[in-house]
């Protein structure tokens, strides 16, 4: 198979050239610092931009599932400026100081949540040569970093000194810690299949076919389990009992206002994106184009589409799947949530792991 497409859009040489050019006019530490700042700003900008896109998409998709049109007045046809207006509004709101809250933890919690989200966000394989945090245990790092977010949620719930927030945080904590198991095991399944924990390596191992096709039955089952557990991890319906409006007003972020609330909101949507992005990386080949063995003309056309388009396209497809699930099913009770995880998903994912390992050993995966 012709592998030239892997180099076609590879931006690693370009980045190396820029680095060398910068090193020739300034010391290396300064060049590294400047590059770090630029990349950091790009991450935060993309984070905010994607949040806006996701919120708009959520509102439109949700509306369509409820047989409505959704926002269509602000900003001409289609309500394109609706979310910008919402963001401007939330920026003008006051950040309220609670009297009996634990001041330090109360202010720290939203930053922890957003920090976990941004760190995980920068691990995603955007493009060939454009991985931002690149290490040989990448996927393990993602699992670890995303768990910091639970800490933020628990702290937010506890430090607000309110019953709603505490109950919401405890529910969320119990749920996320449970579902972390399923996520871990399904991720492990795909690590078994690719033979590496490096995110770039996992993507590169799929150059001759995406994992979901190569791994057939166990991979598809793992994909479904990962989607369910990932949905729970992102605290979204039908697992949104941490912020069940009818019972807990808003759950763990009831007492937050202004941009602190905005951070929770942003992190919730970006966690959706990150969950989908990891699913894309593990199962749908990251930025790898779609290939059908034998159709060389078709494959060549697919190669001309840049990797970032592939990555975003696949990720938004998975986001749509998750939104479909969210707007179809009613919320689960806390005992049902835990039953689903411990009695169904966890045993299922263990079986999948064993099946996948057996398939890999006997060469039954492609």
């Amino acid at each position: 198979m012709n592998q030239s497409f892997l180099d076609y859009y590879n931006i690693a040489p370009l980045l190396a050239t820029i680095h060398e050019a910068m090193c020739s006019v300034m010391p290396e530490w300064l060049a590294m610092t400047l590059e770090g700042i630029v990349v950091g700003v790009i991450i935060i900008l993309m984070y905010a931009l994607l949040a806006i896109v996701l919120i708009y998409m959520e509102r439109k998709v949700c509306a369509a599932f409820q047989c409505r049109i959704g926002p269509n007045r602000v900003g001409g046809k289609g309500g394109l400026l609706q979310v910008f207006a919402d963001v401007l509004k939330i920026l003008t709101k006051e950040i309220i100081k609670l009297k009996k809250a634990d001041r330090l933890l109360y202010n720290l919690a939203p930053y922890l949540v957003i920090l976990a989200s941004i760190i995980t966000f920068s691990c995603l394989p955007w493009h060939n040569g454009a991985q931002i945090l690149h290490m040989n245990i990448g996927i393990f790092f993602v699992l670890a970093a995303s768990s910091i977010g639970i800490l933020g949620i628990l702290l937010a719930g506890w430090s607000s000194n309110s019953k709603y927030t505490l109950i919401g945080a405890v529910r969320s904590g119990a749920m996320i810690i449970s579902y972390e198991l399923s996520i871990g095991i399904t991720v492990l399944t795909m690590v078994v299949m690719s033979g590496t924990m490096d995110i770039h390596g996992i993507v590169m191992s799929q150059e001759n076919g995406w994992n979901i096709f190569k791994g057939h039955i166990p991979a598809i089952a793992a994909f479904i389990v990962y989607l369910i557990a990932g949905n729970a991890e992102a605290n979204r319906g039908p697992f949104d009992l941490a912020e069940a409006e009818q019972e807990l007003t808003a759950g763990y972020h009831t007492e937050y206002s202004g941009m602190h609330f905005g951070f929770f909101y942003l992190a919730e949507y970006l966690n959706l994106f990150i969950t989908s992005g990891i699913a894309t990386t593990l199962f749908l080949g990251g930025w790898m184009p779609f290939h059908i063995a034998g159709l060389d003309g078709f494959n060549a056309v697919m190669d001309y589409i840049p990797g970032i388009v592939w990555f975003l396209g696949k990720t938004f497809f998975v986001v749509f799947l998750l939104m479909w699930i969210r707007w179809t099913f009613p919320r689960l009770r806390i005992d049902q949530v835990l039953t689903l995880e411990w009695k169904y998903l966890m045993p299922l994912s263990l079986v999948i792991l064993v099946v996948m390992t057996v398939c890999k050993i006997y060469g039954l995966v492609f």
Partner: protein
Amino acid sequence: MNSFSRYMKGFFSGLKSLLIGMRTSMKVFLQPKVTEQYPENRHTTLHIPERHRAKLVMLHDAENHHHCIACGLCQMACPNGTIKVISEMREDEEGKKKKVLVKYEYNLGSCIFCQLCVNACPHGAIEFTNDFENAVYEKDKLLLTLNHEGSSLAKK
């Protein structure tokens, strides 16, 4: 074994019902949306059902004739005094005394759209239309006179 088969049965029946739910919501996702974009579509796609009761009118034909004989049944049927039929006795050409409608007053502000007046009318002189844009700035403008200027009873 029994509990294991029950477990598997529960698993697959749950999966099936989830898939049915997802199929249903996808159907809704793809079907045309029901939202009415009201002020924009008022001259194009706006549909108000024929039988919607929004405003009482008295029917007039092309020669400005109505069918109201001023019997006052509608006024008596009205549960909250919305209708006031003002009539007078007049002599016609044959010297017979007859009740003639002078003014048919209707207060849109207090009407509860129960349709008892329309049901009570023996001649089908009044009816409800679906003309629903009745908002006005002053309360007085809700007091309507239903018989047109210079109208008279239709000849049989």
